[in-house]
């Protein structure tokens, strides 16, 4: 039996494993490092960082829902300068492969973040979280507006140059996801991250008011997996050459393979790390095993496999 080639690439970045953390679900990395070496997984996607430090939203910031959860963190974070000074060096020291997630309130803020990161060594890729309210346009989320999405990616692309691959992270809360995806790819995104959380809400029946401090929150976890798989499948069908970082409810190797077959080149694990701090490791080894059992010689061979023409078997 040949050794399985488990590596993947996103733009010009190579990763020995396709299993990454999901932005906002691994904090700075230090906390998960208590449970496994960060070097052992494909990559660490950091919590979306903004230009300035932010307190985020009031508590309660979470609600459990059937097979899922809502969160409304509101991008609490230390700001890009503190992040570059403290978190990047730690991750480099751990030999983690780093994907930095950035978020902004204006097109300009995204470009500023890209400029500050451009000269930082040790970053494998940039994930651009465009599921943020655009303060210049009635708070309309960038990722829900084809035009604003393009402008953000365009600004980042110009600033960052060609060296670091850009992954545009999209929201599923849109009528035409494929159009948004095509737009950002035309504007210079090398890859897409699918999906961010789905907008949801819970009413607290004791207070008879919205439960979350932020009123609405983002739904994540196994509940949304069918939505994520559909999004990945649709976008891969339209843009078969664009690598996809899939996520949304993955908690087993089986789930990861589902996303890969739908078209993902790598898979992020978010909420599952809350259920199980070593989920990344178990998903990774289960996925490897499954690929072997199914007779794949490489992870790449399974990417988008569910799209093969009728009649083609394995």
């Amino acid at each position: 039996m040949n050794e399985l080639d488990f590596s993947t690439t996103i733009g010009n970045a190579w990763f020995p494993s396709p299993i990454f953390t999901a932005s906002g679900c691994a904090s700075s990395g230090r906390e998960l490092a208590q449970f496994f070496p960060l070097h052992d997984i494909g990559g660490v996607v950091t919590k979306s960082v903004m230009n300035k430090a932010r307190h985020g939203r009031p508590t309660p910031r979470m609600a459990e829902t059937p097979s899922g959860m809502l969160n409304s963190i509101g991008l609490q974070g230390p700001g890009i300068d503190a992040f570059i000074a403290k978190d990047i060096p730690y991750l480099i020291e751990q030999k983690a492969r780093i994907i930095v997630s950035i978020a902004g309130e204006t097109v300009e803020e995204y470009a500023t973040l890209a400029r500050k990161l451009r000269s930082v060594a040790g970053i494998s890729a940039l994930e651009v979280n465009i599921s943020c309210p655009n303060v210049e346009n009635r708070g309309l989320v960038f990722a829900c507006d084809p035009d604003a999405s393009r402008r953000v990616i365009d600004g980042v692309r110009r600033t960052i140059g060609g060296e670091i691959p850009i992954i545009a992270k999209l929201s599923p809360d849109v009528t035409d996801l494929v159009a948004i995806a095509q737009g950002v790819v035309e504007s210079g995104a090398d890859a897409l991250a699918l999906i961010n959380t789905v907008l949801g809400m819970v009413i607290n029946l004791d207070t008879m008011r919205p439960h979350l401090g932020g009123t609405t929150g983002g739904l994540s976890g196994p509940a949304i997996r069918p939505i994520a798989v559909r999004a990945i499948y649709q976008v891969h069908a339209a843009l078969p050459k664009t690598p996809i970082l899939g996520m949304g409810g993955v908690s087993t190797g089986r789930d990861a393979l589902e996303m890969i077959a739908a078209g993902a080149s790598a898979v992020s694990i978010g909420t599952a790390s809350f259920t199980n701090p070593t989920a990344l490791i178990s998903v990774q080894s289960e996925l490897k095993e499954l690929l072997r059992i199914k007779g794949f010689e490489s992870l790449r061979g399974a990417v988008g496999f569910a799209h093969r023409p009728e009649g083609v078997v394995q």
Partner: protein
Amino acid sequence: MATINKAAVQIRATVVGNKRVGQYYQLIISIGEIANQCRPGNFVAINVGGESSRMVLRRAFAISRVSESSSFGGTMELIVAPHGSGSKWLCAQSEGTVLDVVVPLGTAFGIPTEPVRVLLIGGGYGSAPLFGLAETLHARGCRVDMLLGASTAGKIYAPMEGKRAVNSLRIFTEDGSMGQLGQVTDPIKSLIEDLDIAVIYSCGPMPMLSAINEITSGTNVIHQCAVEESMACGIGICMTCVIPVKDEAGNLSMLRSCIDGPVMDGASIAWEKTGQVI
């Protein structure tokens, strides 16, 4: 910025005892050598609902006591209130159930280096970690007084054997069904003066902690409280469990109560800005 409790490990741990105590369940869980690493104030995060559970988040419980002499090796005791679906599931588990537990988590109560006088105040199941704490303090030569409160008798957790380390124990219930009628916060002010209290340790609902803090603020009494915020992960990776904390310059930070807490300095918390746990 704190980091996760260095001793934390994820283990499979067997329930070796489950007994109803008033309106709570006392669970004894075998955790082996990790018991040595648990300090009063630490908590655990437990998976609930079994394999095909729709509950994706762990539940947090204070470690009430650890014991190393038992026939099961090291064990820990939890006092669990059957509240929603997760805690009810846990209370329904019998001996032999294997749980997925992350233990120990969070900060511990600070122990004074001198044998000062201390007051321990617990609300509801908040008394659970106080008896283990009392033993530690007692061993340090502290005089330990304790106040426990709850809405009703069944919600007072005060085990016989726990009282050994306590000099005095007063109980308050809002319906008068046990101890005195009233709130646990009623006598604090006079007790501080009468007993020359140096440190108050508290654990219970946030409004109780906040009320205690109002009494201690402006005094020299140190207030070490174990806070309770909704926690999605318990290990510092989700940022849901934050508590607004002021530094000396008065700058506010939102600190994670799972790794900068649950035990925090009451005086540093911006109580007016804290949320309400459901």
